[in-house]
């Protein structure tokens, strides 16, 4: 478990009347970009707060960079940079003063990184934080996180208020400077297209439960839309295929694995397979959220329990 940047087992976080995190088991390898995706209120920020010691898990346990959550919190925070969803920093301080404040906490702080990223991100360093636009506030938060020399960078909605150009610059920094140095990036976001550009792994969460955790390449190479035309298609058990839409004789299936074999099976049963097409991360995300299936983490073949499909 200590080989993982983040590892958790059956994390649960309950608030009065709400089960924000529901048995979450995460496995985030070191040195990767991990996209932590989910809808509003899915439990992403609650999970991050537990990992960073801002909230206590009701049940379960885990480690961050090999240190136990809740018990070795200072050791975790020494090695972890965090940008919160709210991007709240001290309003009266300028970015330079925030740098001065933050620098003292981190032995591996890099002033060279401050100079480089403040120029790349075009941050007005002499204006009070409270006078900055939302986008510039986000940039300051990113600057502080990127300059800490952290082994793990956790970003909660990092693109808030950023224009597409800055998002592009930020993603390049992550890909070239951060991951290139073997550090781990954990991004919680709604911006699937941004995450899709750089993520090696993704975890999809909904209602506090992990729907999918796998390599992005594996997911994209195996998830397929299969569109078939046929009448009175027979019932069968197909654990990796789900009927997502049906209109007249047209049926659209989400197939998690071995789509070609599934299409061949459909043909054998008298259907005409109109199309087998790849799915974008957005389509996979939407389909899985709609199905709301809890699953085990691991490879794509294990992402869902067998479910009967009808056709």
């Amino acid at each position, binding site marked *: 478990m200590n080989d993982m940047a983040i590892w958790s087992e059956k994390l649960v976080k309950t608030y009065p009347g709400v089960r924000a995190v529901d048995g979450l088991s995460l496995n985030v390898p070191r040195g990767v970009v991990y996209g932590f995706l989910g809808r509003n209120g899915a439990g992403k920020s609650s999970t991050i707060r537990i990992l960073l010691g801002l909230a206590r898990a009701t049940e379960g346990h885990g480690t961050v960079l090999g240190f136990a959550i809740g018990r070795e919190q200072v050791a975790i*925070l020494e090695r972890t940079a965090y940008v*919160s969803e709210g991007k709240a920093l001290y309003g009266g301080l300028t970015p330079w003063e925030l740098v001065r404040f933050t620098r003292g*906490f*981190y032995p591996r702080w890099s002033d060279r990184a401050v100079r480089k990223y403040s120029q790349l991100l075009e941050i007005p360093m002499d204006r009070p934080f409270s006078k900055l636009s939302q986008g510039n506030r986000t940039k300051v938060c990113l600057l502080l996180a990127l300059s800490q020399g952290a082994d793990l960078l956790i970003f909660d909605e990092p693109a808030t208020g950023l224009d597409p150009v800055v998002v592009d610059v930020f993603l390049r920094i992550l890909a070239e400077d951060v991951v290139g140095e073997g550090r781990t990036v954990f991004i919680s976001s709604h911006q699937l297209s941004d995450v899709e550009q750089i993520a090696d792994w993704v975890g999809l969460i909904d209602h506090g439960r992990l729907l999918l955790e796998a390599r992005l390449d594996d997911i994209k190479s195996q998830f397929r839309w299969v569109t078939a035309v046929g009448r009175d298609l027979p019932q069968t058990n197909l654990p990796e295929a789900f009927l997502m839409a049906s209109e007249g004789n047209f049926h659209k299936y989400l197939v998690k694995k071995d789509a070609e074999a599934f299409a061949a099976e459909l043909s054998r049963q008298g259907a005409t397979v109109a199309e087998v097409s790849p799915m974008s991360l957005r389509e996979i995300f939407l389909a899985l959220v709609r199905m709301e299936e809890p699953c085990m983490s691991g490879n794509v073949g294990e992402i869902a329990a067998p479910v009967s499909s009808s056709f």
Partner: protein
Amino acid sequence: MYVWKCWRDSRARFIFFLIVILAVCVPFTIYAGRPGGPTDFREGGPLSGVGHLWSWVSTVLLQTLIPLIVMFAALVLAPSSVGQEYKEQTLGFLFTRPRSRRYLNRTCWSVGACEILGLVVAAVLGTFGALICVSRHVYAWRLLGAILPLFVGAVAVYSMTYSLTILTRSGEKGLSYGLGILVVSLFLPLVELQLSPWLWHLSHGHALHLSSVLSLMWGGCGWVIAPEGGFPTGTFILYGVLTLAFPVFAQLILERREV
């Protein structure tokens, strides 16, 4: 670096109160000691000019104005620390710095306590210096003994308000409750009067006093003026313990609080 941040947050208030204290203590002492001033009319009377000056300065300044100013400063300085973090919603940022919450709490509290010590020392030394200049009388050294009771009294108020700020998650609420408790505590001697038979019974015949923080300051400064009156040791210990207990209480809250 957190020390710098705490100092930065509170320095404007500290400097404001420093100016107020020096502006009150020094001119007041010089004014009182000048020829024809309020202490001059009894020259040659039962009290010498110098003795009366000492009495006048110590009573009006040491027992009245300075305690009120430092107590008010203590109330106002307390919410500028963690209370400010709540207001700016920056507690999540602070608590994700690699320091224990115990360290952050102690640092924050200590900066405020040091500022209060600075104010008390400035008040006493300012008065001391002015008194020396005006009278060159040996009584002035006694003033230095007032630092301890003034500091303990003021820092007790600070600690209480600081804890209330954390408990209520609001600088404004902490200040309001702190002020309210302080005002109510001024009536403790009246309560003591009403409850004296019961208190006598409760303490098995020993004198048990419900002393307000002002009683500590007045009593402590009274001892400086007239040592034969005795030092309010019991009250001093009570508020000393409270001064240390409140930050511990605040720490317990902070360590359990979720952000």
